[in-house]
């Protein structure tokens, strides 16, 4: 639901980096989207497509890399990618797992034309 405000933050980063590198156009953006970030890739793409019109990223393609949820178990020290709707350790069954990856959204890379 809040994908448009996330894309607005993407454009803040694009404008800052374009200025910094004296770029005339942004041609590609790579986002890393955690599977439990709360953002939906399809909606991010739709928001990006409408937001980019008339900006220096007008012709840019958006690449979304979904980052799976990775759990770490403090009881057995194991680390694994979360399968389906489960928050227990795949190794020892402990429920005290911590999420170490898969909750954030990052602008990973930008391709610029200078």
């Amino acid at each position, binding site marked *: 639901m809040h994908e448009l405000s996330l894309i607005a*933050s993407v454009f803040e980063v694009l404008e800052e980096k374009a200025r910094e590198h004296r770029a005339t156009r942004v041609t590609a953006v790579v986002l890393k989207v955690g599977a439990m970030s709360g953002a939906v890739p399809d909606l991010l793409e739709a928001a990006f497509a409408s937001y980019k019109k008339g900006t220096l990223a007008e012709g840019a393609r958006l690449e979304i890399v979904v980052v799976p949820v990775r759990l770490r178990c403090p009881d057995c020290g194991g680390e694994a990618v979360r399968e389906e709707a489960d928050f227990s350790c795949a190794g020892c069954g402990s429920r005290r797992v911590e999420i170490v990856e898969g909750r954030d959204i990052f602008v990973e*890379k930008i391709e*610029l034309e200078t």
Partner: protein
Amino acid sequence: MSTKTITVVRDLLATNKEAAAAIRCELRRRGILGVNLLSSPGSGKTTLLEALADRFRGRFRMAVIEGDIETERDAERIRRKGIPAWQITTGGACHLEARMIGKVIGEVPADIDFLFIENVGNLVCPASYDLGEDLRFVLLSAPEGDDKPAKYPQAFLSADGLILTKADLVPYVPFDPARAAAEALAIKPGLQVFTVSALRGEGLDRLAEFLAEALDRQRSRRA
């Protein structure tokens, strides 16, 4: 003309996280416990705050920041209890962000004990936004069904406590408080679970006591 790829690695919620950290710092400095309430619309956040206002009267001072898409209604309800309240109308946005709280925080009286933030009614998006609170509660009301925690895991995962509201309706709707609690605890072990009826007063003493202890802990860490 040349093309180059640059590595950025910028967290899109970094600005929100920074604003939240500043609020947390400010609240702790003032000895105020910040509490963020998340739930679907209509699960009883405002009614719970009205009931807590009655419980706390003469013992603790509280203030409330209300988030809604439109209208001052919730803030007006809280003010009728004699509690200072600020209404943030997001104009369509589905959640509160830390900078919205930051704009109001300066007006919050310094001598209060609790600052409650009632988020926009939505069990999805508010989960992603830290508002600088010390405690986050998710409310789940009996008529919503006990199968919600597994369907909306982010909200429960991000919470410190679960408040099962409208307990007075449990005899009339298919809702098993034990099942709701078990589902939520499977997602977030250690979640504090409260069953309350703001209408009848059931469970409010325990919740009020939990909040009072959390306030004590926060202040003793500061001292």
